[in-house]
């Protein structure tokens, strides 16, 4: 963890300090609410957890995310968040996040670090080899014993999408079909 909750509450939020000292906020003073985020850049986002679609504001300083809170202007949540939405800050700042491409060779008992170039080259080749080996151009249908063109890759499946952006889902859908992947599913089926 980059910042523990305690450190964050003590160091980051002057509003908390205000409660602790009992000092009244004065307009424009150092303890005024707007001073909490003074000098920070802000942008809006939508919560990545459930599908209510609550708005949040992300504050950054020197390119680093220093605060995330509910967007008071958002008509659905009007600034409110649940425990998951409130914890989005810890998704952005979290020592458990994957930071490197990791590879596990067949039969190995550990991951090893690899470069993107190495992994992407190898994955593309695996995808192509699997498509080439398992591509079914035609098949005889069992029901009517007729031959049909199916142009389908049998040996490869693609899963996921509910956590992707729409534009990503779209390209994933487009790419999957171009690869002949009919084994295409995501979380909505379960």
């Amino acid at each position, binding site marked *: 963890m980059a910042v523990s909750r305690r450190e964050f509450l003590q160091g980051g939020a002057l509003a908390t300090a205000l409660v602790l000292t009992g000092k009244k906020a004065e307009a424009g003073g150092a303890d005024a609410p707007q001073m909490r985020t003074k000098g920070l850049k802000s942008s809006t986002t939508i919560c990545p957890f459930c599908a209510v679609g609550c708005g949040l504001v992300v504050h950054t300083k020197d390119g680093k995310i220093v605060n995330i809170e509910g967007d008071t202007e958002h008509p*659905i949540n009007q600034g*409110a*968040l649940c425990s998951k939405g409130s914890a989005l800050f810890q998704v952005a700042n979290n020592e458990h996040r994957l930071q490197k*491409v990791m590879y596990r060779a067949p039969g190995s008992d550990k991951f090893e670090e690899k470069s993107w170039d190495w992994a992407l080259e190898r994955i*593309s080749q695996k995808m192509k080899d699997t498509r080439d080996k398992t591509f079914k151009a035609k098949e005889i249908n069992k029901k009517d014993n007729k031959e049909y063109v199916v142009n389908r890759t049998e040996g490869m499946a693609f899963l*996921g999408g509910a956590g992707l952006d729409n534009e990503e889902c779209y390209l994933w859908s487009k790419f999957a079909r*171009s*690869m002949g992947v009919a084994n295409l599913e*995501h979380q909505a089926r379960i």
Partner: protein
Amino acid sequence: MTNHWIDLKNSDAILAIGCNPAENHPISFKWIEAAMDNGGKLLAVDPRFTRTASKADHYAQIRPGTDIAYLGGMINYALQNNLTHKEYVAEYTNASFIVNDKFEFEEGIFCAFDDQEKTYDPKAWAYEVDAAGVARRDKSLQDPRCVYQQMKKHFSRYSVDMVCSVTGTNKDDYLAVAKAFCATGRPDKAGTILYAMGITQSTHGTQNVRAVAMLQMLLGNIGIAGGGVNALRGESNVQGSTDYGLLFHILPGYLKSPEYDNVDLKAYLDKWTPKTKDPKSANWWGNTPKYTVSLLKAWYGDNATPENSFCYDYLPKRSGNYSFVKLMEKMGRGELQGLVCMGQNPAVGGPDSLATRDALGKLDWLVTVDLWETETSIFWKRPGVNPKEIKTEVFMLPAASSVEKEGSISNSGRWAQWRYKAAEPVGEAKSDLWIIDKFFQGVRKAYQKGGVFPEPVTKLAWNYGNHEEPDVHLVAKEINGYFTKDTTIVDKDKTLEFKKGDQVPMFKYLQDDGSTVSGCWIYCGSYTKDGNQMARRDAADPTGLGMFPKWSWCWPVNRRIIYNRASVNPDGIPYNAKRAVIAWDLVEKKWKGDVPDGPWPPLNDKEGKHPFIMVPEGHGRLYALDLKDGPFPEHYEPIESPAKNLFSRTQTNPAVKIPANMTSDTNKYPFIGTTYRMTEHWQAGAMTRSLPWLVELVPTMFVEISETLARTKGVNNGDQVRITTERGSIEAKALVTSRLKPFNVQGKMVEQVGLPWHFGYAGLATGDSGNVLTPSVGCANTSIPEFKAFLCNIEKGGKRA
């Protein structure tokens, strides 16, 4: 959702069945409570006394998997007590349609059932048509063969006593819910039904949803403010991923994915473009050719021409069922060599997860793209296995989080909302857009040197700028669609001129001749010449109903409440003037309010159209024509059940084949198991079990049992227990609670065992996975597994006790 979150405030009665919004969609409660502040009633129907139930005016306990009995009983209650919205039912639903005289139903089986194949022939359930081919109707609803009378007869068996003996519900509680909700059949009242996986995760899940929709149609609750059939979706963009066709049976925009016998584009369009002979039916899917050709143009660009049927041959054709459960079975048989998981964790999220984990070891290669290590990405070193024996090659790729990239997501109310990039991804993490682009670039490069049938890859249109990462705005613009040449369109009295490259303003201008591109027709209008509509932040609410028409953008055509033509009478006058969604302005000859469901004048006008525009008959279906398990919902028991079906001799859904590892042996497994979610964790847990704040709140796997079961088993709160089903066995800490009570199953009290399913062996907080226990059997129509109702045993102890 037919409606949207803020619209919940407009309800007079909110029925939450098979969902727990206070727990799983907490902010929705802001709007549920707003309705309650205005006198609206909250009704909670659930096996457990949930957080939602604790706030409800009435709570009714229901045994898992008996929703059709419950809802069928409410349908019967509304019909018997004359509480339906008469004009709505006669004019807007298929209640008046005459069913052919061969239709039969006996002992739980509808006509035309093939007992060998376990399939129906739905053609046998067709309407009777007149000489012109239009379905015959009796708007008086008196004809014994009309849908209304058949429905009344079917559900007359769902008496209060019968229902309560099946569902185990206390009769007073049941009647309180039925009375409060069916009171919304009045034209000036609105009732909404909220549901989630408690309704869908069942071997008759689709029929559960249908029962919800039927009740809402009978009460005139669809299309109105505060009404609707509202699925509370669980992931932030599961609506979008469905819209974009990441399922085996659909292409983007709910176009059907081609089947093997759709041998060419013409055959495909003939099969999937519905026809109507009723001039008052809009039959919106009649536009299928325009949407399909615009999609193919988005995918194959200039390579897609009328001469080559717009590259239709490049699409894979399906032969059978490739649903999640079937894919896992296929993987277990060693028939899949490669699997790519884009933020999905099948080792925890799917049913019978021990089988899935073993099946992953049959792959040659696995790619996972995630923010974290997941149970799937480390399956080869999971507890109890020897990595040396697992030959799968694993690539674990680091993905950017939602605040480290730009793009849109669609919430449950169909609002597509834009998100901005606040910071660079951590370490070497990359956006999924970047990763997908690199996959494609790599594969295309490889196919340019040759390979099997390379054209579908090498001819794919993929033009998203020249930067390191695809330009997400170019992707969004392609999804919306643009003109491929200068085009003139005559729209009634207007002539519209478009230049090549102009964004298409809305989907009614899409064409089937290749002159338009649109990657997902339902999103046409989201990115126009006026810019990115999904990024809008104008908080104006002109109707006061909370529609916020200029905040973000929602599909279709920014219509906030779909089927809204049913909110007005056939003259265009709102049924409820106080909460008018749309109204016909007689002077200006146009609709005011929300974007209407089509531009046509009210139904009684000669140009008017029926309101349920997505079915070819234009009427909401109280009687379904195309489902795999019957035209009416009928109660069947879950596959694993302690009860006999009291409604018929057909114990379980006859259109569902039962797999081997299931049993209803109550000597071995005397308790009803069910799974669910909680506020503090999310889905398979990767996104929450490594967040210290959330881990502090809920650190470990637990199982909820009643005080009576705890006493019987000698279990105290916090004791370690072992739960077992025919699929496997897990350990958890016992949470003894008065929120769970045994069910009355035909006079015998049967205990329930409640399990969250968020845990696994990866991440900061670990625990056994609830889905080790759940059965791999699915809904007859959708194949969604029956996670919600199975049989189990529970014993004190376990190796960690």
